């Protein structure tokens, strides 16, 4: 499933028009702890978060994310969008909660990282 198909199916707003949305996505991660996203978001996936700090872009790039979906109506500042465009990282906005968006993605066949792969904060 491509980013464009996900955007259409979930009715997401695109914050970074002009970027290529043809990338195939099969995985996603939902977290507002960016240290967790950095450690555990599966490469090539989509990150769901209510965090709109500039570090979201840096973390998403480092974790090789295909895109970020800001949920729950959270809107990033212009500087965040500008950086994402420079780095060619598509950003989407959703009015629905993280739980709702994750559920819809799951229904489309997108899956999270296996729990056995988890590392980082809080890991026993």
């Amino acid at each position: 499933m491509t980013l464009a198909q996900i955007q259409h199916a979930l009715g997401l707003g695109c914050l970074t028009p002009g970027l290529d949305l043809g990338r195939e996505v099969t995985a996603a991660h939902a977290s507002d702890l960016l240290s967790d996203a950095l450690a555990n978001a599966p490469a090539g996936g989509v990150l769901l978060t209510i965090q709109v700090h500039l570090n979201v872009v840096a973390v998403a790039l480092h974790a090789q994310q295909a895109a970020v979906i800001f949920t729950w109506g959270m809107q990033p500042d212009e500087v965040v969008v500008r950086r994402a465009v420079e780095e060619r990282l598509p950003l989407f906005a959703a009015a629905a909660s993280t739980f709702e968006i994750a559920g819809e993605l799951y229904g489309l066949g997108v899956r999270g990282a296996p729990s056995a792969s988890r590392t980082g904060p809080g890991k026993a």
Partner: protein
Amino acid sequence: MIRVAADLHVHTCLSSCAERAMRPRAIVEAAVARGLGMIGVCDHNSAGNVRSVAAAAGDRLCVIAGMEIATREEAHVVGLFPSAAAAEEAAREVAASLPRCRVPEEQELVDADGATLGLEPLLLSVASAFSLEGTVDLVHRHGGLAIAAHVDRRSFSVPSQLGFIPTDALFEALEVSAHGARVGRAAAFAGLGFALTTGSDAHAIDLVGEGFVVLDVEAPCFRELALALAGSDGRECGIA
């Protein structure tokens, strides 16, 4: 120059997570007994007990007016201010942004003798509406010093919430936890261009002074502390 031991991060009974014994005179006695010449009073999102601790301290101890602000990303930032009035002004802005939550435990506003003057009705230990940058700006607008709290911890720290420390952040210092400083974690934060501090983050009397910095300054006061964090005019701040 004189050498001053400073624990720049101490809570009081205004923080619901702190011991009820964290009252002004007990804090001052513990600080003096442990050889501290300066403490920073930093309750969560409030400066409501700062004046009482300062009154209890008199001229025995320099009390820096502080507040541990929770940003909207849930990262903690210690603000240290030039006066109680400045800290209270900043705290008013923080309070206006706090969500209205049920307060499960007592947040006591006390006088210098520890008598309860009232209970803070807003739950203080929650995220404010200020972004990290907005919080640093808030502290600076009120003449204060912004210190990223317990950066070595896995919760409520800038690295835990934001993945790493933004290199363009305008912190005056990064605070390593007392435990982190003891086990040598400060080295991991050296070389980022920020001064380093440590503090007890004491929520209990026994822990006051568990972590402290050593200041080489002309006098134990806010102005000299600011110079020491900047490494200006021969003043210095080191982790003991």
